[in-house]
């Protein structure tokens, strides 16, 4: 059986496409974002509220960051943020498809069972600037890449079926025909063979 294009793609690419482009996923993520980020955030430092001007500015930037965070929660179960210093130190989520993650068992004596291992493939992000806050418990099995594993599998199956249907429709459009040849072994008369030879 011929392998479809979607089956050959890396899982991470499909996962990113699923999160960014699939209408159902986008609708659900937006729904949760709208529900959670409806109001503003009150920030207090040592019991004192921030000045309204600073608070408003931070709120605007934090809302963008948190919107990305919500997607990250469902993608890899942790919110990853880095610290970038311009005038104000601000958090940013790692951009999708610029990093990969895995889990590995911790060494003995560290007190932890397992920990995340993040590899940044693109971008100038230092390892020490990456911070992890897991939303779900750590996923240890290697074959489970994401909490969305079941949805991912269904999405890939759906894509594969869709591609198969498209290929068969295209094949049909080219008006394929079946050529059959019948031969009666009981009636191989000289005239019959002569007739076939003439036509050939």
């Amino acid at each position, binding site marked *: 059986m011929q392998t479809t294009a979607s089956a050959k793609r890396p899982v991470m690419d499909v996962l990113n496409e699923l999160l960014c482009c699939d209408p159902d996923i986008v609708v659900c993520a937006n729904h949760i974002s709208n529900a959670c980020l409806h109001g503003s955030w009150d920030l207090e*430092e040592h019991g004192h509220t921030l000045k309204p001007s600073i608070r408003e500015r931070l709120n605007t930037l934090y809302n963008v960051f948190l919107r990305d965070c919500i997607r990250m929660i469902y993608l890899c179960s942790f919110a990853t943020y880095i610290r970038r210093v311009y005038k104000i130190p601000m958090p940013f989520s790692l951009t999708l498809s610029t990093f990969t993650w895995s889990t590995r068992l911790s060494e003995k004596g560290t007190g932890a069972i397992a920990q995340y291992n993040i590899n940044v493939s693109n971008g100038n992000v230092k390892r020490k600037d990456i911070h992890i806050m897991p939303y779900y418990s750590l996923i240890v099995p290697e074959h489970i890449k994401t909490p969305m594993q079941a949805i991912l599998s269904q999405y890939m199956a759906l894509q594969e079926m869709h591609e198969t249907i498209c290929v068969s429709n295209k094949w049909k459009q080219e008006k394929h025909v079946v050529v059959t040849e019948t031969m009666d072994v009981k009636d191989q008369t000289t005239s019959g063979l002569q007739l076939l030879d003439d036509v050939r």
Partner: protein
Amino acid sequence: MMHDNVLRLKNRYNKDLRNTNEAKLEWIQDQFGGGHTQGIATHVLPPNMGVIKLSNITYGNEDEILKQHYHDSVYTFFGVQNQSNVQAANKSTTELISLAQHQNTQNVTCFLEQVLQSVYSISFDVPLEAVRVTNNGTPHATINNTDDIKHMADAELLAPQDKKKARKLMDTL
């Protein structure tokens, strides 16, 4: 004399034909081929061969089932009610899902508060315990429609300020 009386098969260009099969082939090629039209080729098959054009492909409803299953899985995973199924759902089911949505929203909001607290602490080098973050917004999941507000108003749960807020909230919905 005998030779002149024999009728020979000839085509329209007065070319001799040996037999009727050759005449058929000549006629077919003259009518449909002959290099006049590009992309058309003629093939003459022996009598014992047949050509069958494939019938239309009919698909089952497996893809529809798979698609529906996928939709349901996505909305269940995110704890969001599928808007296309709201009409079919009865009132009690809608309320139950709304409660689940509300709890889900609260959970995520609490987590985001912790994330912001940690982010602020690291960004500005402030001890974590000195930072307090709260969200002062009302989650949308608590009030779905005007009926909910009406029930709250009938139960005299809304103060005048709350009514203004509710009106403002419905304007933003």
